[in-house]
């Protein structure tokens, strides 16, 4: 039976997918959440200032940081799920192929 890594490479090749890196996914989650936190603190800083003192466009930065940071964190989270699903599918595909191969009988 072929190695799981071979099966995974074959799955990527067959479906035209790019290999995903677990470390990059973790980094995406961390960076995303950090950006969202920075945006939150920036917004908190603006919210306690008097109404007339803060122009409306000043809110754009914190809002964008929160939205984009959340998006990045979700993308990283999804990347982990994709990696797990891909590995499971590659494993199942390998088992299916192995089951249909003719066995050597002595």
């Amino acid at each position: 039976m072929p190695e799981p890594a071979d099966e995974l490479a074959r799955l990527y090749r067959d479906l035209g997918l790019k290999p995903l890196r677990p470390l990059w996914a973790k980094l995406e989650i961390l960076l995303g959440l950090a950006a969202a936190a920075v945006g939150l603190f920036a917004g908190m800083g603006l919210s306690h200032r008097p109404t007339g003192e803060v122009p409306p466009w000043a809110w754009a930065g914190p809002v964008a940081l929160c939205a984009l940071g959340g998006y990045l964190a979700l993308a990283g989270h999804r990347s982990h799920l994709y990696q797990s699903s891909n590995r499971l599918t590659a494993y199942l595909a390998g088992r299916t192929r192995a089951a249909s191969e003719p066995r050597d009988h002595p």
Partner: protein
Amino acid sequence: MATTQSNESLERLHRDLGFQRLSHWWGRAEMFLGLLTMAVSMFVMLYLAVDVLANVIQKTFWKDPAAPAVLTGLIGPGIGAAFLFAFGGYLALVGHRRHLYESNDRLAAYLADLIRSQGRTAALPDATAPATGNGLPAGSSPVRV
């Protein structure tokens, strides 16, 4: 084989299960819009929270008679912001889920295609089996499907 018929097998999976084709870009837009809505509503809530705290302090410690009226006026925007937050979060999760469905569908179609092709290979007549009178191996059908 799965290598060449990826789109066909995906369409077949959708047809067989009665699914609608999912749009990748729509999923992204849903997530982005949802997160944007959440962020806006969060800051509205923060902004309101400062007003609420200020008025509660005025009402409690300084016995300001205008404070309760201001607090009552903040209930409507507060509920609106909370609803926006929930709606935005829901939309972001829908987009997130849509991407996962899309990936799972592709993988399931790949596996289904593989199983189908393996089934066809298994159904092919065994060339080493003893031949019958019609030139085909024993147990094989003259029509190959």
